[in-house]
């Protein structure tokens, strides 16, 4: 009798995302992944991710060329920007839990707390992340509609 049809916890409201810098970020399939704009070339984007668990990271162009800013043991600026915007979008608690940060999750209060406890640089194909980005953008191309939408009552 006391069961509810509603969502139990109200999700943290997303903060002010900078979509010009980071048009896409998500927690999906064991990765914090997304797309970061190039600082210099409007045509170029970087596809970057952090792996949950190992906390290894990767950054490359959408043509699968490795990012020049990625030295080995420390993430490039694209990865920092990606992480920063993920925290803005999901809140740091959810990001830290998703990445499987070691120790008490309460100690991760800001970007640098996570940056200090990362793995090392790794390589993987960026194609699937880029197509997730295109799929995300396609949602904005769908028209608004005026029909009553009762199924939305569950959200």
């Amino acid at each position, binding site marked *: *009798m*006391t*069961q*509810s*049809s*509603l*969502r*139990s916890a109200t999700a943290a*409201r*997303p*903060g*002010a*995302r*900078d*979509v*010009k810098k980071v*048009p*896409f*970020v*998500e*927690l*999906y*399939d064991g990765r914090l992944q997304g797309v970061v704009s190039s600082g210099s070339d409007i045509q170029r984007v970087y596809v970057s991710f952090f792996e949950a668990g190992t906390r290894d990271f990767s950054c490359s162009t959408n043509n699968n060329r490795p990012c020049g800013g990625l030295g080995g043991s420390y993430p490039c600026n694209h990865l920092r920007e990606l992480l920063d915007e993920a925290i803005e*979008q999901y809140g740091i608690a959810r990001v830290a839990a998703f990445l499987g940060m070691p120790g008490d999750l309460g100690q991760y209060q800001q970007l640098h707390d996570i940056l200090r406890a990362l793995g090392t640089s790794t390589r993987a194909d960026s194609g699937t992340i880029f197509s997730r980005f*295109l*799929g*995300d*953008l*396609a*949602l*904005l*191309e*769908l*028209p*608004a*509609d*005026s*029909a*009553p*939408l*009762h*199924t*939305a*009552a*569950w*959200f």
Partner: protein
Amino acid sequence: MMLESLQSLPDGLAETSDAIAQIDGMFLGGFVGGPVQGPLAALGRIFAGSPLEPLLVESLPALARGELQERHFVALAAARAALQGAQHDALHQQALAALGRASATDEAPAAPAAPTPMLEGVRHWLMELAITGFARLEPSTIRSFLPSLAQLREQPELAGLAYLLTGFTSELLGALPVAKAEDVPLQRWADLWAGAMLRAAGAAQPAEPQPVSGTLYPLGLELREHDQLISVVFYALLDAGGSTSAVRVTRSRFKVMAVGGDMIWLLFPELALLIEALGQGQSLALADMPQLPNGDLLWDAQRASLGGKCRLLDVAEPLLAPQAAQAVASRPAPALERHPVLLAEPVVLAGHALGEQGLALADGAALPLDPRWDTAQLPAEEIGKAAKLFGLLRWDAGRWAFQPLSAATAAGKLSFAGQSAVKLYKKPPKSNPVAILEERASRLLRK
């Protein structure tokens, strides 16, 4: 007064909830090797003599024997929906009696749903979820469905199902794998599953709208959203052809998670007029606005213009207060909308006080506040000092509650859920995330 009567539950409601919980229990561990025989037999007895009996006489024993066919799962979804429909009707009658409202005459039954090939895949996937059981689902089962879901979103007539499934899959991906079976929000996921299964049984023919002209008094709005959906529902009174009725305006869109918070209003430039009317206390003049037989308006900003200034809640009180002399009639809900969570009777309250337990009403009755209340935009302080409140009488988790949508001070100043939209439409941000992403989309998706 009559609102006190909402404290007691309609006859049979608790027993029906138990029967629904029995069904939901089967979805936790799945239909393979799970203990499903007992609950299925009990369910069959409930429907003896009902129109669903012939269907269930075949399907329930088949499921119990492990014949896991799609049509049997559709029958199970129908049985569950019928139980919730009965609860909805009993609760709706209770609310109408408490508010002193009559029920408007029933609509003609909807035209039968047409078979749609794309929906076969949806039903099959839903069956897979049921067979596996919510507690044992793997994320890969959800991810494998995402390409079909993207195709479903391209079909305007299946939008309701696509919005539902987009939210459900995203919620499942965030929660799986389930660590403990007790963590599963069982009734909620079973609701989403059954709602999707029934809508995937066929696409219903949309009703024909008729043009309507008159004066619209917007009273408040409600936002419903998940990471990829935003849906705005305005509740209003429409004065047309010599009579006044309660109506709704809904606008919905898929969105991306990066567009959240107040920025969602940038997705709906066509709603600026409705927001302005609410913000300034003005009516709207409608000319030939399309209206569905159940009262819902299909918003077209071209057919609306700002009307005279007025105190919106003062206009609404004589029609929407409990036991009002000129009480509006409540429209019965079509079959797929008969679910207790969809009950939303618009009400104007005056002379209330706000305490720990919720609202203490003028006549001594108490009404808790509904968790759907937007406390950020309409804080408790505004509710406490308001002379009049507008909101919805809602049901969830075994009790009635009030969801405030707007609050008017004694001087007539209106605060409302969603009021940050006023500022956003007046002065859009220099960096508009919707425009930036739409520009990216048009460059990347069409190159």
